[in-house]
């Protein structure tokens, strides 16, 4: 398939899903009222629902989804490991831990920026530990094991922090941090996360050519003037900034970063510089679709996003492991 056509189709898909997302909600607005509310000339209630509740939700779905798809593609390309993704590697769980510490100690209430910054800090610790533990030439197995260890540890500390909170609701919110949700997020969350997500994504996009070169082997890359330490730094900063900020407002949403690059890779001829933009778009479409589905399938139940992405993603992950095993044998 032509690359331009694929990008165009994905942009169209994300656009359509964005509009559908704006049209779905318990208030049951008809399309005309919804549109008038969105552009601010409808009645006051419709305006509030569209601009303050549905718009931030739809925007966050795109930001978070693009982050997950893009960071998954970069991690898979840079680590040359098909199982790499921010969820599997424990980056999401560690970002959650940072966010949890910021919110439940009350720090985020005093200083809102503490929320994305703490989550980015958590993600940074996870990525650094991962690279230290497994290194760049680690086998897929070593990397996944290191990721599982980091993920379990971060989740345990998150549970501990939530259980120690004197707030009776805190302990229940482990579900949000493990499965993710965009319910009733506001523009405040968009403003808190968007700058870091955009910064991270710009850094990650800049890696396209380097990843192309690295896919030809380290020696070829070196001869083309690619400096591995610089690539690593940019990959780490980009991933932690985008994934950290996204997790801080949406919790961890699994499998998107794993599945989306795999689905799109055959369509772009396995070229990383082309995989990055389509993975970002594909991730945005996937999370947007999942967020529409949770509202349509179980309205009023506040189903978590991670439930849906896992139902689709986990069987795919199993299939991927079988593929890996076949290749190893």
């Amino acid at each position, binding site marked *: 398939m032509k690359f331009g056509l694929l990008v165009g189709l994905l942009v169209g898909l994300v656009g359509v899903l964005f509009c559908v997302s704006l049209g779905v*909600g*318990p*208030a*049951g*607005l008809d399309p005309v009222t919804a549109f008038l509310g969105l552009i601010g000339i409808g009645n006051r*209630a*419709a305006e*509030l*629902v569209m601009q*303050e*509740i*549905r718009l931030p939700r739809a925007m966050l779905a795109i930001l978070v989804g693009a982050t997950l798809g893009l960071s998954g593609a970069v991690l898979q390309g840079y680590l040359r490991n098909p199982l790499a993704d921010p969820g599997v590697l424990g980056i999401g769980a560690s970002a959650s831990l940072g966010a949890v510490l910021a*919110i*439940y100690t*009350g720090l*985020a*209430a005093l200083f809102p920026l503490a929320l994305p910054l703490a989550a980015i800090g958590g993600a940074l610790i996870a990525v650094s530990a991962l690279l230290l533990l497994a290194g760049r030439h680690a086998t897929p197995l070593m990397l996944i094991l290191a990721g599982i260890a980091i993920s379990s540890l971060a989740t345990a500390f998150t549970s501990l922090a939530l259980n120690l*909170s*004197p*707030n009776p*609701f*805190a302990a*229940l*919110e482990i579900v*949000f941090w493990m499965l993710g949700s965009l*319910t*009733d997020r*506001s*523009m*405040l969350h968009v403003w808190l996360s968007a700058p870091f997500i955009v910064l991270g994504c710009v850094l990650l996009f800049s890696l396209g050519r380097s990843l192309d070169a690295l896919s030809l082997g380290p020696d070829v890359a070196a001869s083309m003037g690619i400096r591995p330490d610089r690539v690593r730094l940019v990959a780490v900063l980009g991933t932690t900034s985008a994934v950290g900020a996204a997790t801080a407002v949406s919790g961890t949403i699994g499998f998107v970063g794993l599945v989306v690059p795999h689905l799109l890779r055959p369509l772009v001829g396995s070229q990383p510089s082309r995989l990055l933009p389509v993975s970002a778009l594909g991730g945005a479409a996937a999370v947007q679709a999942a967020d529409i589905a949770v509202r349509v399938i179980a309205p*009023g*139940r*506040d189903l978590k996003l991670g439930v849906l992405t896992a139902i689709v993603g986990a069987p795919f992950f199993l299939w991927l492991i079988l593929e890996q095993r076949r290749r190893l044998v």
Partner: protein
Amino acid sequence: MWDVLRAETLILRMGMRLLAVAAVMGVCSVHVMAVPKRVVSMNLCTDQLAMLMADEGQLVSVSHLASDPASSVMVTQAQRYAVNHGLAEEIFVMAPDMVFAGTYTSRASVAMLKRLGFRVEQFEPASSFEDIEKHILRMGELLGRPQRAKELIAEFHRRLAEARGGEALKRPLSALHYANSYTSGAGTLAAEVVDAAGLRNLGSELGLTGTSRLPLETIIISNPDIIAGERLAGEAPALAYETFQHPALKAILGGEPMTGVADKYWVCGGPFTAEAVAILNAARRKVVGQAHP
């Protein structure tokens, strides 16, 4: 053949008689045990009713929630009793002759205590004013304080009558908005409180029953006259409370705070529930522009 049948009938009859005797003895034993001397309560709602009614020295321990100012209206009184956390072991060493518990909380502990032979009296959560009266009467019977129960019911009626006052024909719409965007629908104590305050309850009008989710979006589009819930001050933060900070909610409230009805007045039913009616009725008067009578 006939003999066998007669024998069976006889056995059946004897069985019945034995049962009847047992029942009578049971009644007797209840009667004999009617005034317990060491009572332990392991549920916030029974805590408060027991504290309101028990005789001097009769109540030994109440749950830790009874001294939590967010949930209990009787924090000072609770200081006089030993604290328990609803754990079977704690209750066991207190050697009570009667234990009060809720029907939904600490089920494993309640089952354990029953197995150990303790007399456990369970109370359903009150979901109407009628339930409150029934609970007070039953608690009075169990504690051997029926007179005190009658006094409390009279006090409840008096406070309700005071709280109500000034009903108009116009009944403004009220949305109950709790943490995590939950609300009370039809068949709940809160719905009856709202009704008694001369308001319509949005949750009930939307066909919700029990405590269920009412998304912020639905509240905004329903444009209620009053939005009421717990106004949380100095509470530890949680995502559950972020809904109270949502810009859409702030916008529809027009900069005013939500009508604050503390959870403690209606998580449990008691004479103090009349206070919730009074708060909501005051908010209603403000909306319809009615002066305090």
